[in-house]
């Protein structure tokens, strides 16, 4: 396969080089991941993307399957197939020329990489205010996009959909991601230490309530992106979530959908 066109997508400080023989697709990726594109000089991983013609049976509605076989991760959904060798740091993706399939592959890949390092991807909006990161977690409809869209000036939006959480020496970092929700806006490619995680609930007033540690872990686990049917990885993610809630305050944020809620976020 000729892979003369390449682009490096750097999310969370993990650059993944995507190589393709299709110049237009390369440009599509560069445009889709604006702000997260860097020079492909020192990649963490390289993926060869093979584009195939669309067929009626290719559907992104199918469940994703992720499993480890002979040391290589096998990723499969109706609209793509992929393989990733974590030791060789290489892999391939077979999909049609669309940005959604590769986006899912990248999410899965990053969730696998992060799990080994004590981090995870979380269904959460994220923002930096006064040098600290705040995350707003919840399922679809909980208000992630609403909170993000209400952010006042001076707040840097990391994402309105998927937060990238890395374990650091002293705490946890939230990194911006291009994984956008309804806001359809990629986050800023920057990071900050996480000061607090808010579990979102909509109500008649704006208020913050404490959440018991065990409930925080339970809610967090519900919102962590996790795809692999792999026993070791399940244990890693469980451990990561427990360690996280022991170090980072998790609180419930009940809010009315107006900008005054941000008065509480400091």
């Amino acid at each position: 396969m000729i892979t003369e066109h390449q682009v490096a997508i750097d999310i969370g400080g993990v650059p993944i080089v995507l190589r393709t023989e299709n110049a237009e697709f390369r440009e599509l990726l560069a445009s889709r991941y604006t702000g997260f594109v860097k020079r492909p000089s020192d990649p963490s991983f390289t993926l060869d993307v093979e584009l195939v013609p669309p067929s009626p049976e290719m559907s992104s509605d199918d469940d994703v399957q992720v499993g480890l076989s002979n040391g290589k991760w096998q990723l499969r959904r109706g609209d793509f197939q992929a393989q990733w060798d974590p030791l060789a740091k290489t892999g391939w993706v077979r999909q049609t020329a669309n940005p959604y399939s590769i986006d899912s592959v990248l999410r899965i890949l990053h969730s696998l990489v992060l799990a080994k390092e004590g981090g995870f991807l979380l269904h959460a909006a994220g923002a930096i205010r006064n040098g600290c990161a705040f995350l707003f977690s919840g399922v679809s409809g909980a208000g992630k996009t609403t909170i993000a869209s209400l952010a006042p000036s001076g707040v840097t939006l990391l994402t309105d959909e998927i937060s990238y959480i890395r374990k650091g020496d002293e705490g946890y970092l939230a990194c911006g991601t291009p994984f956008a929700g309804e806001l359809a806006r990629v986050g800023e490619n920057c990071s900050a230490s996480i000061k607090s995680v808010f579990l979102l609930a909509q109500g008649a007033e704006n208020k913050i309530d404490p959440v018991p540690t065990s409930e925080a872990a339970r809610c967090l686990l519900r919102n962590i992106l996790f795809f692999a049917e792999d026993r070791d990885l399940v244990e890693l993610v469980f451990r990561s979530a427990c360690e996280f809630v022991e170090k980072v305050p998790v609180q419930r944020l009940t809010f009315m959908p107006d900008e005054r809620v941000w008065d509480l976020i400091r």
Partner: protein
Amino acid sequence: MSEKYISRSTAIAARMLGGELMVMSSSDSTFFTLNEVATVIWQAADGQTPLSEIVSRIVCTEFDVEPQAAQADAEEFVAELSQHGILLVSDHPKPHSGKQEPA
């Protein structure tokens, strides 16, 4: 009624958090928070001690509960966790492995 012997599966991850024991099945990712009584049963699940003895000797000693009600609750708890492969149930004691499993 035959005796039940319960042991902890190795396909789980468990951790004390905020005074509660959290248990997650690594095979189907189901997640449980155990209360104090369930935690005691969990910790005593060595595959050697009959469930009835765990209830009478430990649960009824440490908590103010009626033996019959405690046994019924324990049976229910064990049935639920065994459905998810978190506790293993046998009608005979587990052979000694010579190795102590972590609680």
